[in-house]
């Protein structure tokens, strides 16, 4: 309400109920809160929030929900009260993170990896929070933008932006090379054909070759320039 963290609650139980009545795990004694308002169900390292048909509803990040898969930094609103869900097991704390384990039906406890307790904190406060788990496939995002410009032939002057992880150049069945966009930069590799690509007059071998700004590439008789975008 005034930005202060009132309380931190560890989600140690499988099911934690929130409501106005005293038997709830988290009691919020306020008339805008229903007797049994909502519940947080935790399955190993994931938690789900459920609205228990409360009168005034439950919001997550401003949206009303019935059932919601909680993600790190989600803000839950019940009436005027806010709870923030924190789950920083995403930080690669231990080498054991992401080791495959077997979970068997019938209640054998599979020890969860890196059991940093998910903790919703009452009210939104100044928290030092671990960055959320990055979605896969975002690693090359920090690489400067680059493009290829065709220098001769019918398509001279055309520009080809290198936005995907792989961009292929040349003619299939004749000569093809590919430019890979990686966190370390851009690399050109021969894919098929009897002739290997030429960069700045030098014929490449089968190895991936790093590209520098303004390198001139020749594939299947077409010259093109690689350049980084400002």
């Amino acid at each position, binding site marked *: 309400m005034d930005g202060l963290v009132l309380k931190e609650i560890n989600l140690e139980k499988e099911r934690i109920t929130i409501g106005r009545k005293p038997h709830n795990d988290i009691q919020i004694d306020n008339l805008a809160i229903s007797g049994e308002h909502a519940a947080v169900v935790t399955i190993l390292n994931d938690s789900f929030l459920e609205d228990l048909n409360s009168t005034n509803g439950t919001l997550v990040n401003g949206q009303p929900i019935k059932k919601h*898969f909680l993600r790190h930094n989600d803000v839950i609103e019940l009436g005027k009260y806010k709870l923030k869900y924190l789950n920083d097991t995403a930080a690669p704390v231990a080498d054991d993170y992401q080791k495959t*384990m077997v*979970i068997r039906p019938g209640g054998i406890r599979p020890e969860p990896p890196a059991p940093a307790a998910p903790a919703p904190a009452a009210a939104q406060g100044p928290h030092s929070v671990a960055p959320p788990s990055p979605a896969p496939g975002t*690693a090359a995002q920090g690489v400067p933008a680059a493009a290829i410009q065709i220098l001769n032939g019918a398509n001279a002057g055309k520009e080809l932006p290198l936005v*995907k992880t792989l961009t292929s150049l040349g003619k299939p069945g004749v000569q093809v090379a590919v430019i890979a966009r990686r966190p370390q930069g851009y690399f050109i*590799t021969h894919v098929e054909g009897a002739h290997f690509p030429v960069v700045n007059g030098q014929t490449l071998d089968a190895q991936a070759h790093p590209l520098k700004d303004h390198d001139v590439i020749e594939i299947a008789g077409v010259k093109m320039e690689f350049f980084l975008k400002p």
Partner: protein
Amino acid sequence: MDPSDALEIFALTDPGQVRSHNEDAVFANPGQGLVILADGMGGYNAGEVASGMTVTLLADSLGRQDLRCMSGAALEQLLRTEIQAVNQAIHQAADSQPQYAGMGTTLVMGVFHADRLLVGHVGDSRCYRWRQGNLACLTRDHSLLQEQIDSGLLSPAEARYSQNRNLVTRALGVESVVEVELTGYDVAVGDIYLFCSDGLNDMVEDEDIALTLQTLAANLPLAGGQLVQLANDNGGRDNVSVILVKVKASFKESGSWWRQWLAWLK
């Protein structure tokens, strides 16, 4: 045509960027049209032992059979029997030697047979098919996450953010009997099949897997290397293994009637 002429196979396994050792194991026998991939789990080197045993025992027992002249039903029966036998062997080793207690492994394997592919799997290692510009996952993970998706608790989009990754509901060696999923598919010339451990599909989006297979279909080793590199560029938090199989021609068994007859005589 012989499977070894009709199929191009490339296998690669890599420890990744974080793990000190590789608990994955891969095997390919082009002559039999057989590929095997296992992702082990367990303390110390037990995971490597479990995946290594799986690949070695299956390669050995199936290597002594002439898979080509079998009927589809007989082949399926053989795989069930041999996978059960491997399960028992791992389970017994885990039971009898304390350093191997609790070890287990996933398995995904394929037998290319008479223009069909028989896929067997246990756990969360996968088989994908690239056909005419479409990537399809043929296997359904035996994992907590997949069960949560199936029951509607999580959407596939939400599942990407789950912290309950890598919890498999089935594995070889964990119990005395294992339930194996075996499914047959028609194979078409031009198909590319990708068998992989979760170190690939956890780190690399399906779109990037598809882009790689599309762009590098003409160069299978490069495609395999690129997939592993993508996983490592994205963090490489797990061991990553890929087996790529490209179908270059039909491999229907010609003159199979007399081979089957010979096999029947034996």
